[in-house]
């Protein structure tokens, strides 16, 4: 039964990953507008001549710029404000935090879900936030955390 559950989870998860990747404009995450390029050059020129090389590395160098894009995507993926209240009402946020805590505490019990959550954040970091339907790969986890939180706080007798 447990193995069957894992299989179902994996199938649904893979479908979601494919859907997320197909509906995300990945190119957009790694391209710069002429204005952004101009701004990078302006910033590089703000470094004094003695630090010109550092200015180039910090502001223009391609690898550093890619790292900055990844950083932006990562912080977008874990930004609470992105989800509350944009996608979920504020009132659920306390339950989200309680649920997230329980989820991390009991991560050994649900390893597959835990790693699925981490993988979702990594995928989102790589493909960027220009998704047609938003971060659908992360949303199920959020709802899961909220349910965990509600169950913890209210402890319904029927469970």
């Amino acid at each position, binding site marked *: 039964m447990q193995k069957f559950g894992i299989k179902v989870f994996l199938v649904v998860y893979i479908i979601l990953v494919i859907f997320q990747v197909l509906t995300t404009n990945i190119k957009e995450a790694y391209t710069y507008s002429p204005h952004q390029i101009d701004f990078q050059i302006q910033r590089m020129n703000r470094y004094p001549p003695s630090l010109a090389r550092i200015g180039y590395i910090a502001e223009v160098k391609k690898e550093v710029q890619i790292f900055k894009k990844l950083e932006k995507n990562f912080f977008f993926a874990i*930004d609470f*404000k992105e989800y509350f209240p944009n996608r979920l009402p504020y009132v659920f946020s306390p339950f989200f935090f309680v649920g997230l805590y329980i989820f991390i*505490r009991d991560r050994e019990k649900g390893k597959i879900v835990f790693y699925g959550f981490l993988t979702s954040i990594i995928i989102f970091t790589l493909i960027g936030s220009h998704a047609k339907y938003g971060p659908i790969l992360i949303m199920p986890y959020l709802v899961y955390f909220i349910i965990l939180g509600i169950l913890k706080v209210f402890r319904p007798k029927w469970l």
Partner: protein
Amino acid sequence: MVMKKIHYILLTVITLFFSGFLYFYKLELIPSGFYVDEASVAYNAYSIFITGKDEYGFPNPIFFRLMGSYTPSLFIYLSSFLIKYFGTGVLVFRSISASAAFLSVFFFYFLVRKMKLYKLELSYFVITFFYSISPWMVFNARLGYETTLAFLIFNIGAYFLYISQKKSRNLVLAIIFLSLSTYISHNQRILAPLFLLSYFIVFRRKLLTKENIKNILPAFIVGLILHIPHFYHIGTRAFWIKGAQLDISNFWNFITYLSPKTLFYENPDIDLQHTIPKLSMMFNWMVIPYIVGSYLLIKRIKDDRYKFIAIYVVASLLPSVVSSYFVSSQKSFPFIIPLSIVLGLGIDTVLDSLKPHLRILLLGVAGYSLFVLFGSYFILFPKERASGWNYGYDLIAEYIKERPDEFFLLDDARNPRAYILLLYHLKYNPEEYHKEVDPFYRNNYYSAPIPATYYHFSNVEVRQIDWKEDPKKDITIIGDPLSISEQQAIEHNLTKVSEFKNPSMNIIFEVHETNPEAY
């Protein structure tokens, strides 16, 4: 053992060296410009020093009206005392904050030491180092107004409050420092009572013992005595000026303040003056210890030490959360203490999981942090935030000083508080200004009247341009590039005679002479 001690001494020296350097290096030049809040405090301190009265000619106020903010007075009185010995330069006012920030490093260390939260001895030094070089700390260490001094005094109070759990006689000291902090900044006027109240509610069982009561009573009496000046002004509008701005419906802003994106990636503060290019409040890598530390904080919340941190988190954020819909990195600055303690929990856990020889990686993290901070704060910030810091008013003041026979109009359409910047940079005699300022403000000092829209002193008027009348007068008009367009200059026969540029070489002020004969 001896080697370890040498390492810790070395770490302490490194922390003090870097914090001293980051707080005091080029302090008079960076931030470039002198912000209007700094000028306001500085000119009032100067006025108090010369005349014993504030800019409006009101004798020794307990709340300074300034431009309608009714700022608690202690920072201004301290500044006026320092003016006697060190003059009125930018450095004097900013060095109060730099010194306060430097002292706060010690009290942060004392607090985490007393709390005994970390497994590794090394973690106490490491988190103190990162606290001292964090962008949030460095930024606030270099302000010429009350925020950082209030922060220090509040932290000393919080430290004594924490140690009063074991020795309740420290409660008197805690009350003294927490009360003093309310005389320095508005933020602490909400934060200190909130923190104290939450502390007493959470630890009531521990506190209300026979042994403690005999120390609580004197502390309470000391508190009452220290707040007599507050009680005396409780009926004035000035006393409640910030209270009227509180709005509990902003409560959910907690989420924004606690979001990793806000803390470690992008400071969402809409005030350009409060931000550093490319940096948020803390370094981006700290998101990892933040997640680990937050988890541990919740996990161990039943422990009194962690309850104390939780109280600190809520109390330090609540005043800023409910005071505005927008994030204010300045009002929430006290949050850096519980945040750093939590980051320390995370760093301690990560370090503990590493093999000892891998802890050398810390050097790389420290190097990266210093590199990023130096580039953002000391190279980009002075150029990109110069206008946000009111750069250029000293240049205008010099220009005016060199032309005592001309009459000037400074357009303040985009900076309605510009008059105080000129008063400060002109070092205009406060006794003279008291004769020129509208006595209405002196006579209704604490009743919070609406700020003036017109200022006149010496050969200067500060107000918005009246396009019907001003071009007919023989005056020199100074304004930013939006004040006078090329078309307007042609239409009204104005002659551009000078311009001033900021460090990015953008024009910030233009000087035009009128030609009344042409009318």
